[in-house]
């Protein structure tokens, strides 16, 4: 690990000022915020991230209230640990999709360390990104090419990719957030502002070294998830190479509101499949107003993967994603209706 200067930020304003050169997720950013450290310290050991200055956000963690629920929705502190929110009973009963996306991620130790803000900013697990001895990586070295396109790309993305990068967004919680129309609360050079979570990650892979739309020094302080009849009838289905402690090779987030036999409203996110947290409006639109039959679910899943591009080892992914989504949709249908008055 390369030497760095370590600073503890006493408050948000100071943290933002010290972090004004954090950039937009560029690997060569000279400053990094330290929260849980489970991505950052790992990638610093691997010599992928080489910050000159580390700004510790620990003092902000201590002041944060992890979970606030009211009739308008849910507010999660970005400084809350994954385990604090995964263990929260009110989240589990009213937003099971969020609880499941956290419980099925990482290990108990990592969930005790990692914060929600850091979780949504975690870096890809692309082995060519994580190993600097590979020269070709447009995410690490802009303009150097992509070693994964003709390499071992079994768990690389098939949606939202282009010829410059096929790295996969590895997170689970971000898939729940994009399905549930979450908003970010940000503190930074513009003061306090709100932004849709769907705008956080760069929308295409054409400039893969630019990962987020955050401003330099901007810090995610909270996630707001609006309430709705679909939040309690929701689930996260994750398919992995082993039963636990593994990234998704495919996942689906589904939140459903039914009007009798017909779908009134549905929200669908796909994980383990795309360059960024992926929302499938195409699949949603096909289901609205229709009964949630296997045939309709299958048609929706086909629409969700219509634009998939594969590169050899990941040829299996679109079919796995379709089956994952069909199963998730049919399981969501079997979940109990939200009780009246909730």
């Amino acid at each position, binding site marked *: 690990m390369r030497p760095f200067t370590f600073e503890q930020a006493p408050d948000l304003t100071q943290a933002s000022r010290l972090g004004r050169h954090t950039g937009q997720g560029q690997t060569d950013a000279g400053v990094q915020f330290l929260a849980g450290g489970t991505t950052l*310290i790992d990638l610093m050991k691997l010599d992928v991230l080489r910050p000159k200055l580390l700004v510790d956000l620990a003092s902000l963690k201590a002041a944060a209230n992890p979970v606030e629920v009211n009739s308008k929705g849910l507010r999660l502190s970005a400084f809350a640990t994954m385990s604090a929110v995964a263990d929260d009973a009110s989240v589990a009963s009213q937003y099971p999709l969020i609880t499941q996306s956290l419980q099925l991620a990482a290990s108990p130790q990592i969930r005790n360390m990692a914060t929600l803000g850091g979780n949504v900013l975690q870096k890809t697990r692309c082995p060519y990104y994580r190993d600097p001895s590979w020269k070709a990586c447009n995410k690490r070295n802009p303009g150097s090419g992509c070693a994964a396109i003709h390499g071992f790309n079994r768990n690389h993305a098939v949606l939202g990719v282009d010829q410059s990068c096929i790295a996969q967004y590895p997170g689970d919680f971000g898939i729940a957030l994009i399905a549930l129309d979450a908003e970010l609360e940000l503190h930074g050079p513009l003061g306090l502002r709100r932004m849709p979570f769907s705008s956080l990650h760069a929308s295409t892979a054409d400039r893969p070294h630019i990962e987020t739309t955050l401003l330099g020094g901007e810090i995610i302080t909270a996630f707001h998830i609006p309430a709705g009849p679909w939040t309690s009838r929701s689930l996260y289905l994750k398919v992995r190479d082993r039963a636990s402690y593994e990234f998704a090779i495919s996942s689906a987030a589904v939140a459903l509101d039914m009007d009798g036999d017909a779908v009134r409203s549905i929200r669908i996110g796909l994980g383990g499949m795309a360059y960024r947290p992926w929302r499938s409006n195409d699949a949603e639109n096909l289901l609205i107003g229709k009964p949630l039959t296997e045939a309709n679910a299958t048609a929706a899943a086909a629409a969700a993967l219509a634009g998939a591009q594969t590169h050899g080892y990941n040829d299996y992914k679109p079919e796995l994603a379709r089956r994952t989504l069909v199963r998730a949709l049919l399981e969501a249908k079997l979940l109990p209706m939200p009780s009246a008055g909730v």
Partner: protein
Amino acid sequence: MPPPITRRELLAGGAAFAVVSADPVAAKTAPASSEAAPAAVPVDLKVNGKTHRLRLDARITVLDALREHLHMTGSKKGCDQGQCGACTILIGGRRVLSCLTLAVTVQRKEIQTIEGLAVSGELHPMQQAFIDQDGFQCGYCTPGQIMSAIACVREGHAQTDADIREYMSGNLCRCAAYPKIVAAIKQARAKMVGA
């Protein structure tokens, strides 16, 4: 007969040789440029109830501070990348990975390691259970398994065998002693919570 030399003493004595020889680990982790290492910063670590005043490079993890600076080698370095769980310790009562935690970030917090479990020579119920149930083969992952298992029981995540397997998934055992580890946790759970 000369006093027996322990493995630990032999390795410590051998360290001087390792410094002059080409140390592949040092070569791999050293900065590529001629950048000077930053000045050491004062770090107070409270380990098993005792505060140690150290001066450390900010890059030093809790795991390296324990092993290399406090000579508490119970916590093991497996992958050093947060993937295997061999370095699991408790900080503030919660299980975490000491290999991904910088020492400067945990000052004055309560750190518990495998060395602090036994009281007056009597093993913690979890340590005794791993011995009774034969919950290891080579033993390298065992300190991390035991620290993680204690937290698992305290969290209430050791109710069923399936629960134990899920909530112990962050601790890998390449000898695959998993069934015996589950048995050990069930034995210790009965003593720890009287269940």
